[in-house]
């Protein structure tokens, strides 16, 4: 480590020369702005601006938005209440209460599964930690609301959201491993992951 000495820029020769430089630069910039504005006004070029919320926005497939819980084929929650997401969560926003499942083969399931979304930092570590692919971060990004709204998402809300309108395949086939683990996961399965 050391100090790098940089020469001071030479002082402008005179005020006029400096002012000229500024003015021409601004003019050059404005020229480009005007050109694009005119092109788009005359519909010669497509505008990148979306008229959100009337127009829907598209995000990358890997976008980490609002959480949802996947389901078994019979509609029950896949989550086995192993607490690994709660353990991994840096914001400590996941609360789980485990219980004995009436079905002998399932044994353990979450009686309560709650996410305090105001604390969530959308890091996606819960999704990474899950051994049974039960929690995922979905494509929903609109989470604005008012103080009176519920900011703790319950298991029921996370499990089946009518507003997703079936847009997300949150039902997972039993014993279907994550594609990265099980390369035989079909294209069909991959397609159904995220759709807007």
């Amino acid at each position, binding site marked *: 480590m050391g100090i790098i000495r940089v020469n001071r820029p030479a002082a402008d020769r005179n005020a006029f020369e400096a002012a000229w430089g500024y003015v021409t630069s601004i003019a050059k910039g404005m020229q480009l702005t005007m050109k694009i504005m005119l092109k788009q006004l005359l519909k010669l070029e497509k505008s990148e601006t979306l008229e959100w919320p009337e127009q829907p926005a598209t995000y990358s497939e890997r976008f980490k938005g609002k959480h949802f819980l996947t389901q078994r084929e019979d509609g029950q929650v896949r989550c086995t209440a192993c607490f690994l997401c709660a353990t991994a969560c840096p914001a400590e926003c996941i609360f789980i209460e*485990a219980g*004995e499942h009436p079905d002998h083969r399932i044994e*353990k399931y979450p009686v309560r599964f709650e996410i305090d979304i105001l604390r969530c930092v959308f890091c996606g570590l819960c999704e990474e930690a899950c*051994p049974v692919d039960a929690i995922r971060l979905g494509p929903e990004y609109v989470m604005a609301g008012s103080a009176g709204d519920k900011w703790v998402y319950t298991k029921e809300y996370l499990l089946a959201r009518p507003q997703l309108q079936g847009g997300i395949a949150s039902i997972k086939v039993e014993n279907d491993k994550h594609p990265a683990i099980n390369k035989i996961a079909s294209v069909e399965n991959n397609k159904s992951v995220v759709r807007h």
Partner: protein
Amino acid sequence: MSKQVSFTLDGQEVTVPQGWTVMQAARQEKVAIPHFCWHPGLKVAGVCRFCLVHVEGARKLEISCNLVVQPGMVVSTLRDEVKQAHKWALEFHLLNHPLDCPICDQAGECGLQDYYMEVGLYQSQMTRPKVLKPKALDVGSELVLDTERCILCSKCVRFEDEVTKTGALGIFARGDRSIIGTYHGQKITHQYQENLVDICPVGAFTSRRFRFKQRVWFLKEKSSICPGCSTGCAIKVHGKPEMRRYFRVKPEEDQSVNGHWLCDKGRMTLEHLNPEARLMQAARWQAAQQAWEFSPQTAPFIRELAQEIARLAPQDIALLVSAQYTNEEYAEFFDYFVKQRGITQVYQWREPSEARDDFDGLLLRGDHNANTRGLMAALKQVGIKAKIGDQLEKCVAAKPQLVIALSPEISFTAPSLPEQLAQLNSLARVSLWTTHFSASQWTQLWQLLPLRGFAEKIGTVTNYQGKTRVLKEAFPPVASEVLAISQIIAGLHKEL
């Protein structure tokens, strides 16, 4: 003094009593030799074949749990061949072990997991299906048995045979079809069931009480002394302070008292620590509404009590004391009330029906008060002669104007507590200092002051042997209004 033997363990000269095994020596020297079937409180079985060590001159690796130290022996646990053997021994154990970790309560304190991180082979060799066995069997009031997770270390069978001598467990069939269990799923009924959970190195036995309640890695543990009876077993209380909840009680090794074990009753003391059973705020009885009035402020209650003490002559005040508090608490309590305030009426508060000399042959004693001897010593200290026995009726009969009472902490030790409290109702003013509270059973007492539970204080108790033992560590109290006896007395000091 028995004869000593010296040998070399991993290059260190180690001296141990004659007849010790290498495993015992390694445990003393804190050299970790992986093992499943060895337990210091049980006979050697030598079946897990995990604790292999290299002995110079031996033809093959030896298991350290059955290897008696010979003078001059050179033992190594660090050689590559030993490490390789450990890796494979673990691999054999994992072969038919189900991948239940997400739903297994043992996860986080599981021998297989821990050793896998330490000595795992890290490349799965297994491609074939596992042997399937019955799961989630009900084998006792405190136990759930998963035979698939069992690694057949036989510790539980030996516990049943050697410690409780009930012989209820067996290993049936043979080879990798071997199944641990009771005869045709019969229930284990003794008082020491949860020890099976403790000694199980995997999640084959899990505790019904703790089942699915919490993952173990969230729990903090603090050393304490069991308040369930006069044996005073060393325990560890496991709780989650940020949740203000306690989840389980486990025994701590103490060869002079409880060895490695703890009875199920002792584990039930936990129920008296959690908020549902606790008095969280000071309360007074509102006769008009026939209801308790709780208050977040304890200071006014202490002030009222102080005023009463000041108003009354010492002979109109009585102390009613149960034998479940620490020596330090008694010292402070009696020092203030007897020595400083001159109160001479001191009564013991005990269970009238207790069979004090009962003993189940292992740990649990009929005297359900953890500190009977400590209380008697404290009374003697302040010059009060007393014989052990319940004096509540005598206290009521004396009709004092004010009774300051230290309630029993653990309710299973005092089954007649509601009736005893009802007797106190006839008295004018009772200031009951208590950890727990039952809205349905308690009425009409003048004031209730909330005390800290046994896991929330440090101090000493004296058990039936006269051994004074330490409650070493304390959790923060479940509520900020819950006070130590010393805090209440300090409050009284300030007022008077």
